[in-house]
C-alpha cells in the first residue's frame, strides 16, 4: 500500500503538468444537463439523452468511503432510492474510482453490492476513466445531481444538510433535511428547486490523478 502511495506521489510530481490539464466542469443549474454516455454493470451503454421523459438522479458513490458506508449501513440511501423508484425517477449510481483505487469495482462486484445492501438503483454506471465525473464536476462521494424529465439540471451538491465536519458520523439522518428526497415532487413537476446548489461533502472522488 505504502509503496503504491509513494508510486502515485512520484507519478503525480512527474506528471504534474498533465494533472493541471484535467478540468473539472461545473454544469450550471436550470440549464440542460451535460449529456453523458457511460456503461452500466451489465455492459449496456446508458446515455442521458435516451432517458428524456423521466427525471434522473445521479449518485456518486464509493462503497468503501466511510461517508457512503454510513448512508448505506443505516439504510438511508436505500430508502431514498426506494422513494425514487416509486416516483418513477431513474436512479443512477456512478462509480468514478480509477482501477486500483478505493471504491473501484468489477461489474460483478457492483451487482453483488447492490444485492447485499438491498439497494435499488436503476443502473450502476462504471466510470473508470472519470469522464462522467469530470463532466458533472463530481467532487465527493456522495455527490448528488437531480435532472428533470426535460433534461434540465435542477440540483447539484450534498445529499443532506449535515455538511462537512466530523459531526456527520454522529448526526441523525432522520433529523437532517435531505435535499434529494424532500425535493422529488418539485423535480417531477419540472420546476426549479428551492435549494438547487449546495457544497457536497464526503470522501474525494478517486479520480486517476497520476
Amino acid at each position, binding site marked *: 500500500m*505504502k509503496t503504491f502511495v509513494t508510486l502515485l506521489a512520484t507519478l503525480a510530481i512527474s506528471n504534474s503538468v498533465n494533472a*493541471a490539464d484535467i478540468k473539472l466542469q461545473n454544469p450550471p443549474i436550470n440549464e440542460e444537463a451535460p449529456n453523458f454516455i457511460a456503461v452500466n454493470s451489465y455492459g449496456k451503454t446508458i446515455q442521458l439523452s435516451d432517458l428524456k421523459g423521466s427525471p434522473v438522479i445521479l449518485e456518486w458513490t464509493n462503497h468503501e*468511503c*466511510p461517508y457512503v458506508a454510513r448512508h448505506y449501513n443505516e439504510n438511508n440511501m436505500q430508502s431514498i432510492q426506494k422513494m425514487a423508484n416509486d416516483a418513477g425517477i431513474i436512479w443512477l449510481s456512478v462509480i468514478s474510482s480509477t482501477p486500483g483505487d*478505493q471504491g473501484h469495482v468489477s461489474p460483478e462486484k457492483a451487482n453483488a453490492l447492490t444485492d447485499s445492501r438491498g439497494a435499488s438503483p436503476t443502473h450502476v454506471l462504471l466510470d473508470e476513466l472519470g469522464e462522467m465525473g469530470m463532466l458533472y464536476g463530481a*467532487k465527493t462521494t456522495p455527490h448528488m445531481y437531480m435532472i428533470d424529465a426535460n433534461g434540465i439540471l435542477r440540483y447539484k451538491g450534498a445529499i443532506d444538510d449535515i455538511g462537512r465536519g466530523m459531526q456527520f458520523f454522529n448526526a441523525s439522518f432522520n433529523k437532517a433535511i435531505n435535499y434529494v428526497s424532500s425535493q422529488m415532487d418539485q423535480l417531477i413537476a419540472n420546476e426549479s428547486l428551492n435549494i438547487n446548489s449546495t457544497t457536497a461533502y464526503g470522501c*474525494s472522488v478517486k479520480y486517476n490523478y497520476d
Partner: protein
Amino acid sequence: MKHIFLAFSLFLSTLAVSNPVETGHARASLITNLQNSQQESFYVGVRLEMQEGWHTYWENPGDSGSPFEAKWNVDEGVIVENVEWPTPITIPYPPLMTFGYEGDVVFPFKVFRSLDLELSSISVDFDFLICADICIPEKASLTLDLSSATPNVLVDEAIQKLPLKIIQTESAVKGDGLKTKFKFSQPIQDAYLFPRQDNLFAYTPTQQLVSLGDDLYEITVPVLNDEVASFSGILSIDGEGFQIEEELESSSSMSLWQAILFALIGGLILNLMPCVFPVISLKVLSFVSMGGDDNSKIRNHALSFVGGVMSTFLSIATALIIIRSTGSMIGWGYQLQSPAVVGILTLIMLGIGLILLTNINFASGLTTLGSSVQSRNDYSGSFFTGVLAVVVASPCTAPFMGAAIGYALLQPSFATLPIFLALGLGFAGPYLLLALKPQWISALPQPGAWMETLKQFFAFPMIATALWLMWVFMVQTSGDALILLLLLGLILGIAIWMIATFKGRWKWIGMLATFLAAMQVFNNLPENTGGMVADSSAEEWSLDIESDLQAQDQAYLINFTAAWCITCQTNEKTAFARDKVKEYLTDQNITYIKADWTNRNEEIAVGLAKYERTGIPLYIFWKPGMPGSKILPAVLTEDILIKAMQ
C-alpha cells in the same frame, strides 16, 4: 459474546484515558505549555503525528474531507477557547484540491481558569478524518493531568507559527477570477490563498501569482460565481500564514427602491444646482406673473412644464439604456462630451439671454420662457422650458443622484426606467405641487413692473451659462473653433433681431440667409481634440493608481472632473483651489489625483463604474488604516473636504 464485548469496551476505555493514543494512522496526544500553577491562562495543544502519506484537514477542507471536531471536558471554572487554525498546506488530488496538514501538527487551544480552583485534569474527545488516497474517521479521547504535566515547547512553537498577522490586501473580481493584491518585502517563491468560505471559489485550476514589481504581488483565484461580496482566509506566503479579511465593492449594494428614493431626492436637489438655476428662475417668474390668474391655467402650465421634464428624462434614459446595452461606457452628462451639443446649448443660452434682455416679442414658444402674459394659452412654451431645464441640467449630478443613476446604468435594462422617472418626478416636484394646489401661487409676491426688470436681469445668468459653455467648448476644441461658435452667436443675434423687426416675405428671406450662414459655419466646426489644462499640483489618474498607492500605504484624493460638469467646476473653486485645502494635502502627504473626463474616455468610465457611478463629480479618498476608499460628498466646500479627510 457479551463478555467479549465488555472486555472490548474495557480495553477501549483504558485506551481512551491514556495519552498519547494510537488512533490507527496517527498518534494523538494532549500537551501544554503550562509552566506553573499560578498561571491564569495557558495553552493546551492536540498533537497529531500522522503516518507518512496521510493528512487531516483545515477548517475549509477544500473539495472533500472534513475538519476535526474537539469536544472538551473540563471542570467548572475552566474555559477552553479555540484559537486560530495553523497555516494549512495544499494537498492536491487533481482534479480535486484539498487543504490540510501532513506529518506532525499541533492544534493549540487557549485555556482560562480560575486560580481559586486546584489544577486538575483536562480531557478532549478529538474526532478527525485522516486520509491518504482513502479516508478514515478516527478518534482519540485524551486526558492530561495538568498538575503533573511538563511544559512542551512544541505548544509555544505552534502558537508562534499561527497565522495571526493581518496582511493588507485589495481584491476585485475580474472575469472569472478574484484578483487579490498584497505587498510583501521579500521575494516570494510560492503563495496560496486559502479561503475560509467553501462555496465562493474554485480550487482548480490552480491559483496564479504574479509579481507587479515594487514588492507588489497579485494572486488570482478562480471564482465559482462573480457575486463574491466578502471573504476571509489565510494567505500563505512560502509557508508563512497571514489573515485576510476582505470586503469587496458589492455589485448590488442598493435596492431598486432605494435607488428610486435617491433619484427622487436627487431630482429635487437638482433644481438648486448652478447649471439649472437660470432656467428654473425664469419658470418661477412666469408662475409669479400668473398670480391671480385662473387656477386651471396655472395648473395647465405647471403640468406642461412637468410633461416637458418627464418626457425629456424618459428620452434621455431610453437613449442611455440603449447605448449602454451595446457596451459603450457612456454616462450621465455624456452628451456634453460632444462639442456640437455644447455649441448648440451655448447658442440656446445666448438666444434666451438676448430675447430676455431686449424684450423682443415674437410668437414662438420661446417667449413664454419669460412672463409673456399675451400668450398665456400657449402651453408648448411651458413644455419647452421643461425640456430645456433637463437638457441644461444634464451636466449636473446632484447629491444622491449619482448613486441612483449609477445603479440604473450599470445594469442597463428598461426595468431601471422607474429610476429615471423618479428623477424627473423629483426635479419637477415643486411644479407638480403647484399644479395640484394652484392657489399657493398667491403666496408669491404680487406681479408688477419689478418683474420686467427681473426678467431682463435673468438674461445675465443665461449669458453667464453661455460663457461657461463657450469655455467648455474651447477646452474641447480650440480657440479657433470658439471664434466660429461666436460667429454663430452673432448670426443668431441677427436672426432674432430680424424676426422681431421685419414682416412677411423679408422676414423669411432673412431667416433663410442666416440659416445658410449658420450651416456654413457649423460644417467647419472641428472634432474635439483638447482637454483641460493639466493641473500641475495633481497627478494623472490611471485605472490601477488606487491599488498601487494603497500598496505603498500612500494616502490619496481622487477628483473625477470635467470642464462641462459645472458642479465639478464649482467644487474646484470652493474647495480644491483653496490654499487651506492645498496646504492640508501637502501637510498630510496626500497624493492629489485628477481624472479629466471632458472628452470621452472609456478608462475613466470603467474607473467610475468601480464605484457604481456613471457620472461626475466623484471624489474618492483613502488613507492608510482605512479598509477601503470612501466616496466624498458631491458638493464640497474647503471645510467639508478637509473634514471628510480627517
